């Protein structure tokens, strides 16, 4: 599948934003972090900025962005519609919770209700994003039981690394934020490796013979293409990344996305370093993770093969 930058930015940025929103609200509700005004301002500011950037980016992907509001109508069948609705709705409880926190410094009842709803909505939104891809039977790499959990796990991991950085910057370091980052990054890495193993080992179940129905005659191979230059179907669905590049990019994704952020977060937690070094460490963890997530997401699209390629020369998908 063609790795469109707008969709890569959308899924990574909004994933981190919703992760930050959910974890920041949760830790405040549990009393782990204090509802200090400027911390809240930064926390919600960054989360809203990332989410809004992601959603705007996803509308740039549309041919007719001015009609985007129509996407709120088909929640009965469409995961994309469900995602749009929950994503837009999340602004309401999150806005209320942020209002209570930043303006009144108050997250006790009734403001805490908005906080809990924010947590749930953020998680459901990310799950819907994963389901948009997981529901597509035409792309076996995506129609996989680990895709929606992976989206959620990576959103929590990137949100927790971001939260850890914000807490350090505001001199409110909370060990638990570091632990959540380490655990979710490790889990994300393991599930991602498991997923790669699973798709690499899966034999293509769809064949050119099934696609054309000509298997009764024998092996099917293309003789004349239907058009001289790539059409929309080939440009969008026929994107293929060279195997050796994919292997290198996977290594980079693991290195930047998981290994370095885990290592720096562990160092910050264990070394009892000065405030400056702790900030430096948590910023490094976040920067590295952001690079890794973009590579991981680019690969998610670039490595996905669509069954329509069977009509254009692929033997199995």
């Amino acid at each position, binding site marked *: *599948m063609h790795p469109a930058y707008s969709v890569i930015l959308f899924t990574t940025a909004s994933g981190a934003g919703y992760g930050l929103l959910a974890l920041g609200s949760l830790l405040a509700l549990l009393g782990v972090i204090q509802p200090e005004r400027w911390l809240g301002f930064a926390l919600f500011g960054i989360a809203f900025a990332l989410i809004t950037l992601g959603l705007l980016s996803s509308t740039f*992907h*549309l*041919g*007719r*962005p001015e*009609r*985007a509001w*129509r*996407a709120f*109508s*088909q929640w*009965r*069948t*469409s*995961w*994309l*519609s469900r995602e*749009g609705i929950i994503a837009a709705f999340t602004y309401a409880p999150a806005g209320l919770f942020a209002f209570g926190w930043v303006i009144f410094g108050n997250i006790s009842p009734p403001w805490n209700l908005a906080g809990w709803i924010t947590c749930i909505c953020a998680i459901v939104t990310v799950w819907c994003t994963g389901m*948009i891809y997981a*529901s*597509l*039977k*035409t*792309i076996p790499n995506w129609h996989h039981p680990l895709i929606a959990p992976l989206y959620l796990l990576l959103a929590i991991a990137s949100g927790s690394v971001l939260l850890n950085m914000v807490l350090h910057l505001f001199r409110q370091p909370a060990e638990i934020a570091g632990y959540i980052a380490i655990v979710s990054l490790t889990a994300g890495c393991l599930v991602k490796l498991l997923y790669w193993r699973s798709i690499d080992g899966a034999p293509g*179940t*769809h064949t050119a013979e*099934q*696609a*054309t*129905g*000509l*298997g*009764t*005659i*024998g*092996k*099917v*191979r*293309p*003789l*004349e*293409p*239907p*058009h*001289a*230059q*790539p*059409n*929309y*179907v080939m*440009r*969008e*669905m026929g994107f293929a990344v060279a195997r050796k590049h994919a292997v290198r990019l996977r290594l980079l994704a693991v290195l930047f996305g998981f290994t370095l952020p885990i290592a720096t977060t562990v160092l910050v937690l264990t070394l009892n370093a000065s405030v400056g070094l702790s900030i430096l460490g948590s910023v490094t963890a976040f920067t590295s993770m952001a690079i890794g997530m973009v590579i991981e997401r680019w690969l998610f699209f670039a490595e996905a093969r*669509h*069954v*329509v390629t069977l*009509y254009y020369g692929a033997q199995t998908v």
Partner: protein
Amino acid sequence: MTMLPEKTDKKLGLVIDLDICVGCHACVTSCKEWNTSGYSAPLTDFNPYGADPHGTWLNRVHTYEAGEGHDGRTVHFPRSCLHCEEPACVTVCPTGASYKREEDGIVLVNPDTCIGCKLCSWACPYGAREYDYAEGVMKKCTLCVDRIYNETIPKEDRIPACVRACPTSARHFGDLGDPKSDVSKLVAKREGYDLMPEMGYKPVNKYLPPRPARDGRATTDTPTRPNAQQGKEPSSGTTSTADKFFAWADTVLSR
């Protein structure tokens, strides 16, 4: 409205005979000609006379080779929307622009409400939907909905443009939900089949398989492959000492 109708009154669709399609692409150009000024108008082309022409077409004809030797066949393979009974392209649509008509089962895109998210084209295994980069909306075969019910054109023209244009009658149009229709009888007689039935989208359009080769065909003069003979000549040329040396040097240097 992306909820699928429980059942449609008719199942209008195409039956494509792979035995007699000659791959002339008349259906392709006729489809383009009608639809670029019909329901889906316009079907935009980019750089049509340049080095990299591309554009929106609703019908494509591939040519495949299947099988080997005596049993091998060249098969021309037209590919367009199959108007599935359970189309995922419709259910994934977030706006309701994609829909399946209850009265005849035709799958359409409303060009006035499509937001151009392209998800429907991702959901279609058959590559039937082509995005119009200029209009910013998805285009697809309408089964010539603006011809088949059109009382302002002569009766013989009230069939899809591709069917009307086919010089060998390899394309047939009718109600595949009615077992007594000509197309249903044809499918039954010739053992018409579905493309990728394992996807579960229940395509309405059917393909008729190429008939088996007639007895005695090409048994006496099985052609030898031209490249099998050509392949020998250059290899006999590379046996000279100099050529062997260069081949060796090439191998060593490219390590």
